[in-house]
């Protein structure tokens, strides 16, 4: 290799490194400025934190009842006196999440075909689908719940609708993006044999994306159980209503009992769904 080539290479390499270093420094600066800015605007004051931290412990301490070893059963029964009712509400919460996940995912399934660049039948369909799912997932689900409670009255129905609408938006985006990563060869094959658009989606696209979709739906269900648990805060059904009543009425021991129930249920469902998802993905990886 001639020396000049090497020199040119060295020079451009040094330039490249300089440029990269400059970018890193700039990035760090930006981070520090943004961090300081948001701390000031958000009244993020370490002193407040230090001052309030003990109160946090105090509150938690107050919600925990006295449980004695020699009276364990009685004390637990006293603590969880509302268990039958709370379990009912927990089941209602899970069913709300289940229905909402089904409804929302069904909608997302439809919207996903229109919202992917490679499959959409027309550009305006693409934009409409993308904007609709964007809107549905950016508005917080509690806001939708408030609106639906106003329209349909208290109870699980507005909660289900609110979570379904949010799921539609969130999964609509995920599904559309999964669709954009498919292999287009089968799509071309179907088009070439005279299949119409719906048939092409059914036979060339759906078999490719179904395992992906199943995984997304399970994941959404996990999230939705958590959301359904707080829907009751605005009167939209589930265990949340009971929790917010306990908080407002200062029934300290009820708060801890209900929270423990929620955490247990949500963890169980998370673990179950994760196992299922891994099984799905694992099987995919093998075939």
């Amino acid at each position: 290799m001639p020396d000049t080539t090497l020199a040119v290479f060295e020079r451009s390499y040094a330039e490249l490194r300089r440029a990269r270093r400059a970018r890193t420094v700039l990035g760090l600066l930006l981070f520090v400025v943004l961090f300081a800015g948001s701390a000031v605007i958000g009244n993020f004051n370490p002193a407040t934190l230090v001052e309030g931290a003990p109160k946090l412990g105090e509150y938690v301490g107050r919600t925990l009842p006295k449980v004695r070893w020699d009276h364990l059963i009685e004390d637990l029964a006293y603590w969880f006196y509302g268990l039958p009712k709370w379990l009912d509400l927990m089941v209602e919460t899970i069913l709300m999440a289940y229905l909402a996940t089904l409804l929302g995912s069904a909608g997302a399934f439809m919207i996903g075909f229109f919202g992917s660049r490679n499959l959409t039948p027309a550009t305006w369909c693409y934009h409409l689908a993308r904007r609709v799912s964007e809107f549905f997932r950016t508005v917080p689900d509690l806001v939708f719940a408030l609106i639906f409670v106003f329209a349909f009255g208290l109870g699980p129905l507005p909660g289900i609708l609110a979570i379904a609408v949010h799921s539609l938006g969130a999964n609509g985006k995920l599904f559309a993006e999964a669709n954009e990563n498919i292999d287009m060869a089968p799509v071309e094959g179907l088009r070439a044999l005279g299949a119409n658009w719906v048939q092409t989606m059914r036979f060339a696209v759906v078999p490719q994306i179904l395992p992906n979709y199943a995984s997304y739906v399970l994941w959404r269900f996990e999230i939705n159980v958590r959301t359904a648990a707080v829907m009751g805060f605005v009167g939209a059904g589930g265990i949340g209503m009971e929790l917010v009543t306990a908080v407002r009425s200062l029934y300290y021991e009820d708060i801890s009992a209900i929270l423990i129930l929620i955490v247990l249920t949500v963890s169980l469902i998370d673990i179950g769904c994760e196992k299922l998802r891994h099984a799905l993905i694992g099987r995919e990886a093998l075939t």
Partner: protein
Amino acid sequence: MLLLEGVSRRFGNLAAVNGVSLSVEAGSFVGVIGRSGAGKSTLLRLINRLVEPSEGRVSFHGTDVTALQGRALRQWRARSAMIFQQFNLVPRLDVLTNVLIGRLSHHATLPSLFNRFTAAERTMAVESLDRLDLTAHAFQRADTLSGGQQQRVAIARALMQDPAILLADEPIASLDPRNAACVMDSLQSINRESGLTILCNLHTLDAARQYCDRIIGMAKGKIVFDGAPAALTPAATRQIYHVPDGEDLSESITSTIRRPVRQPEIAVATA
């Protein structure tokens, strides 16, 4: 009879197909050869309208194919079956379903979504699978088959369409010589026994010589040769493949698949 009159297709400034006129007799086996980028694939796609023409007219038995819309267009696509270099099967579905899919254009949308086909169609599917020696694999997932078997599944699917013409876009370019010969033999026997018209893009001169009764040479979007295989002189071949006079034109150059023309030493001749 398939008729192309002054058909062109431009992509930006590039004329991929440039004023092509051509008529294809029913029952013939026509090979289209040319260098990569000559416009062979575009020409075939203009016929079944996977690509829209910029100008010109394609007609079949007097029907103006370029004017078809909606359902009529889909029916024409069913009648002009296409097979592809990458087979374009649905990998996750079994072979039988992949073949039955060839009937989709005859089904109403809603019922077809439930994957239901008539007994007559299933019989037809088994017959075409049998014809291509694939009955043993009917319930296997398509992506577990070898390339040659997948291409034969694609041919079986094409037969289900009850086609008037078969468009084959480099059907053997991804196959090893033995599988390639097997696929070309299948096409030949279908052409001879059922009189199905076949228009086949080929990269390799030897395959074109061996199987086609007419060869069309394309260069830069235009037809530069059209005649019997015997009429394909070295001079004509030079023109199709842009090899300057005086330079050696070995058969292996024209067998090269997606490789620079100047490197015949790494070329693999296919059967």
